[in-house]
């Protein structure tokens, strides 16, 4: 090492040590509780996840980033669980996020995930780390919390024998049913072709939809998984266009998220079978995002349906309306449906931290925070008044159906 380089390196090290000492001294006045979120922030879902992160930051700012009357400082980091190579959430990244959170004792809550398949990986890791409580704003696959879906579910996700996972959003056992009922009773659909993206969430909601559709007497003409990175789906759509005894089906239901090439699928559907009045097109909350309409083009997307848990903006309670006003004042117009769920995850977590303090407990203890979150009853939040049940599921069951009209999703009804 040359002399000059040595001097330079020593200077850098010395400076950084001084800075580190200052930093440590400044933060010592209040103990810091760290909260992280793990959401796909590389990929089409970013449209939705950015609003979730905004809403979580908004709730923190409202609490002045502190809890228990200033005894604790709150810090928040938004982690990305997607990778550019996958173009959507990446199992490797989600697992590493889970391990990172488990290993950092200052983290007291993990807000995520967005995709049910990702939750499947991090729940067991965090369950054995305290357990560290996990609150999801968006996972809807029922088997994460309820028995009767996959083999061994849900116990297989909780190796520590204690539940650590709760969600503020209504699961797909409700969504799939509501979608099938809506198609049958409101749209008069008799025959339907089902496609899914072969993911836990997409296939899960498509399966519930299929079972309900059959029980309602609809003809299910087929249920295929698609290749989510294909350049086009013209051959598949050609096949579907004659699947109903030589005619197209009354409707197509797609169980997928926007990242799974949903816009290309819709484009090819419209190219082969015409606009969405003749052959209806419907999907779950994974396609209820402005990116779906922008990506397909407003004229192609015109008339498609998408469902999402909760009430439309204009039907929200006063607390919900206040959230909307606050959000729009800080970040501009909100069209995405998941922001309010992001807000509610932070909301219910902060309430749990306060209740730990109120009962004389220590909110830096993961188990104490977990117990307080699961004890949430009749919580008066932005989504209304609701409770967590023993499984960590919300008591809310409202589902709203939206239709794309002139380039934006418009609510057309709310069902249970």
């Amino acid at each position, binding site marked *: 090492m040359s002399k000059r380089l040595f001097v330079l390196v020593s200077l850098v090290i010395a400076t950084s040590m001084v800075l580190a000492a200052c930093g440590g001294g400044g933060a010592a006045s209040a103990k810091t509780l760290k909260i992280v979120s793990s959401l796909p922030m590389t990929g089409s879902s970013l449209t939705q996840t950015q609003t979730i992160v905004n809403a979580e930051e908004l709730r923190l700012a409202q609490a002045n980033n502190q809890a228990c009357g200033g005894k604790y400082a709150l810090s928040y980091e938004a982690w990305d669980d997607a990778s550019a190579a996958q173009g959507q959430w990446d199992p490797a990244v989600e697992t590493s996020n889970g391990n990172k959170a488990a290993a950092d004792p200052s983290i007291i809550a993990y807000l995520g995930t967005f995709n049910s398949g990702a939750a499947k990986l991090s729940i067991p890791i965090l369950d054995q780390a305290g357990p560290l409580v996990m609150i999801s704003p968006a996972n809807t696959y029922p088997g994460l919390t309820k028995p009767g879906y996959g083999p061994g579910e849900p116990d297989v996700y909780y190796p520590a024998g204690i539940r650590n996972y709760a969600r503020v959003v209504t699961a797909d056992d409700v969504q799939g049913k509501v979608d099938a009922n809506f198609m049958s009773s409101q749209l008069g659909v008799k025959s339907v072709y089902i496609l899914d993206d072969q993911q836990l969430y997409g296939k899960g909601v498509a399966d519930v939809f299929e079972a309900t559709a059959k029980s309602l007497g609809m003809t299910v003409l087929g249920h295929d998984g698609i290749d989510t990175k294909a350049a086009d789906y013209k051959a598949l759509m050609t096949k579907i266009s004659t699947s109903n005894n030589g005619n197209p089906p009354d409707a197509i239901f797609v169980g997928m998220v926007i990242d799974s090439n949903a816009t*290309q699928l819709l484009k090819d559907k419209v190219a082969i079978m015409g606009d969405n009045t003749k052959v209806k097109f419907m999907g779950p909350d994974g396609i209820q995002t402005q990116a779906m309409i922008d990506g397909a083009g407003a004229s192609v997307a015109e008339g498609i349906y998408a469902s999402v848990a909760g009430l439309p903006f204009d039907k929200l309670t006063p607390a919900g309306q206040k959230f909307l006003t606050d959000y729009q004042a800080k970040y501009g117009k909100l069209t995405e449906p998941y922001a309010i769920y992001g807000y509610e995850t932070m909301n219910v977590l902060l309430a749990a931290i306060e209740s730990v303090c109120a009962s004389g407990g220590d909110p830096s203890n993961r188990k104490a925070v977990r117990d307080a979150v699961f004890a949430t009853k009749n919580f008066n939040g932005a989504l209304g008044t609701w409770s967590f049940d023993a499984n960590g599921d919300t008591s809310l069951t409202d589902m709203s159906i939206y239709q794309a009209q002139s380039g934006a999703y418009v609510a057309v009804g709310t069902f249970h």
Partner: protein
Amino acid sequence: MSDQTKTVLRRTLIAFVALYIVFLVGPTAGFDVPAIAKQIQAGPIQLIQFLIVGISNGAILAIIALGYTMVYGIIELINFAHGDLYMWGVFSSLTILSLTGTLTTNNPTHLIWGIAVALVFAVVFCASVNVVIERLAYRHLRHSGRLAPLISAIGMSFTLENLGLIWAQQSWLVPSFGTTGGASQKDYPDLLSRLFQGLGYNVNLLASTGIGLRFTIKDLLVIVIAAVLMIGLRLFIQNTTLGKAMRATAQSHDAARMMGIDIDRVISATFLIGGGLAGAAGLMDGLYNGTAWWFMGFRVGLFAFTAAVLGGIGNITGAMAGGFIIGLMASFSDGYLNARWTEAWIFAVLVLILTLKPTGLFGEQVGEKA
């Protein structure tokens, strides 16, 4: 027993095992012969429809495969960045279409010149980018063995993808990108249909026959442009001085240099042509399938590379044939088997063909130095 007989016997055995496996696991993957027979019987017209879809998609793949095969033929490099260059073709043409106001017009004359300008720009742009990539990332590594340029190519691929991601955020260039971030699929409007409807024609050229077949103006254009490009390229390689120099360089760099050929110039020209083809393919795919997406080059690149290997790497006729074969297989698998198994079927066929004929269907054409 002679070696040749042994080889034949071994390959026959492999073929039998492969067929056995296909029939054993086939039904799971949608290979259900009675059901397929029933479907064909119920709609024989559909068979032709799948053929049309397959050929059109295959034409685009074939043009991209040419870029892979030309580069491999001349410097034995798998240019991983080529698929992403095609994605840049999609984005650059879309940007020009937006800047010239073509995206929002219904005026047929405006549409025609807008598309023409976009085509020229995409070709020139991608050709230049490809030459620059070769100059910056590959030329210095030409004598560093095979792995160094390969890794450099993977790096270029990621670079182009991530720049594409940034490109897709620039809604001041293309307003229809919207404000939803660069990662989502972007709309590439169906300008050809708009043009034809504007001129008073039906987009489906076979609509008047009433047999329920769709052969649109888009299918026709894609196939015609692909055919013209391929025939032109073949004539160019066979008959021009530069084409001859390319073939000479492919056979042996040293011998070509001794004959007074400027190898660097010839290799640059190869990248120039390959890049131009990728640009043209980008515009065609945008107009045909209607989506611009930063990650779209990966899958198409993989299929195009597979097509090049299937036909015999370095072999131009082989690359074209490989493109059409993969397009058709994908279309028939989507239509008659099961869409989720399409990739598996394509690569199963690739494995089978390469086991039986390792040099590809039409034989490799690379230098003898290896």
